[in-house]
């Protein structure tokens, strides 16, 4: 399938889905009402009008910016923490052994239960959402870096030592690039989770952000607002994912394409 054909078919799927949605929510059936009442399902036209209105009035930009800021902070803080602890544990097996059950315990915890505590600690501003995102991003990066340091090929390691590398040089030329490659290969997941953390945090209590918009609409049974918020969020995630792909291509040039299935 050619590139153009593929895009055309992808567009066709969207058109069919929206058309179906439109027909089901507007064309009356036997008792004069549509099969899917707009009160529950809204209509594509209402949703598009709402999105256009948000962008025309410019109110949406502030919310997008807040969500983006929260996600970025969560990603950076969580990644730095994950890299440091991942390295430390991988190089100090005893430390790793001691903390192992606790790491598993915290990671098994559904992060959403932490949200009220973070709200209590950090207030309703951005930092409680950043904290929630950090708890998600940290573990993904941590596990990947830990794995990356542990799974350096023994041959490459032996070669590095035969080439005269000391501990510091091994760190810089072998462990660090290997760990980074694992971290970057999970970039899509960790960036995605940073956004999830931000939006869920906003949804549970905030004054701004995409999660806040959706929550506000929901509380007033403004279904068009809920759907509009969801679509903006989805588009936002796709744009960020595209940027991550660009960054990834630049950073992982040395890796064969076949290995890109790892996410």
């Amino acid at each position, binding site marked *: 399938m050619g590139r153009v054909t593929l895009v055309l078919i992808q567009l066709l799927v969207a058109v069919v889905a929206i058309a179906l949605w439109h027909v089901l929510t507007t064309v009356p059936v036997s008792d004069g009402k549509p099969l899917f009442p707009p009160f529950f399902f809204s209509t594509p036209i209402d949703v598009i009008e709402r999105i256009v209105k948000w962008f025309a009035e410019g109110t949406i930009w502030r919310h997008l910016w807040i969500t983006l800021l929260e996600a970025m902070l969560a990603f950076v803080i969580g990644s730095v923490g994950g890299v440091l602890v991942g390295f430390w544990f991988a190089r100090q097996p005893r430390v790793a052994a001691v903390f192992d059950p606790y790491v598993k315990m915290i990671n098994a915890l559904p992060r959403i239960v932490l949200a009220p505590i973070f709200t209590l600690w950090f207030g309703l501003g951005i930092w409680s959402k950043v904290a929630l995102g950090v708890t998600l991003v940290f573990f993904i990066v941590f596990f990947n870096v830990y794995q990356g340091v542990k799974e350096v*090929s023994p*041959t*490459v390691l*032996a*070669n*590095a*030592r*035969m*080439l*005269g*590398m*000391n501990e510091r*040089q091994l760190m810089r*030329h*072998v462990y660090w*690039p*290997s760990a980074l*490659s694992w971290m970057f290969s999970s970039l899509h997941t960790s960036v995605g989770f940073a956004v999830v953390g931000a939006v869920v945090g906003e949804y549970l209590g905030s004054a701004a952000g995409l999660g806040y918009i959706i929550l506000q609409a929901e509380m007033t049974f403004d279904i068009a607002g809920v759907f509009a918020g969801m679509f903006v969020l989805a588009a936002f995630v796709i744009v960020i994912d595209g940027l991550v792909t660009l960054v990834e291509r630049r950073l992982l*040039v*040395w*890796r*064969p394409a076949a290995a890109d299935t790892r996410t």
Partner: protein
Amino acid sequence: MDANGAAQPAGSAAVELSGATIAFRLAAGTTYTAVEDASLTVADGEFVSIVGPTGCGKSTLLNVAAGLLTPSSGRAAIFGRELFGLNRQAGYLFQADALFPWKTAIDNISIGLETAGIPAGEAHARAQDWLARVGLAAFAGRYPHMLSGGQRKRVGLAQVLIRDPKILLMDEPFGPLDAQTRQIMGNLLLDLWSADRKAVLFVTHDLEEAIALSDRVVIMSAGPAARIIGDWRVPLPRPRDIAEVKLERAFHDLHREIWQTLKDEVVKGYAQTGGG
């Protein structure tokens, strides 16, 4: 034996293994003896091949010479000095891919100089020179996955040789390559080697390759507890061409003679490993 090595004769061997036994502890509290009572010397400037059936512990012996493994008993000496820890005088060309996949060809080659404290600029210039010597001048910016198997081996060879080690240890370096590429790589190796005649310990399962390259061929028995069971001098003149030397009568005579010893061990080796 003199402990400090000072009383060694001036021409002491580059590598000397005496009575080296290498045993590994297995999970069940038993031990597996890979190599038993192996004694082997490689003189300075001498090219010695170790040939043996699969799983006979050839690589184990090489790792002892590299200092990556310590023998359970016996000793290893490098230029008359007993070896503790890594063998700093040796370069090691591994069987498996050992290049740093995140470094370009030229960075893979220059790294061995940078670890020795040579400034990056000079290291790069010398690495470029080595790239040219192994015929990859145009491939400096390629990452290992963009190179063919043979090209990767060339980079590996340059990576090791740029450090100018006194001893070159090679573990079936051309094993994964196709027949033609092996021949080309063999000739390249002989070319580079003849420039400054390092001591070489070359492990292979291919008797023809061993004879064509070496001054001496050492045969090991099938494992476990593999022993050295033969040591032949190769009377072929140098410089040699791998393809042409195989047509000579002396080559065939020697091959036949060594094969008489080797073939029983090969059969045993296959029986041990189930043909693997």
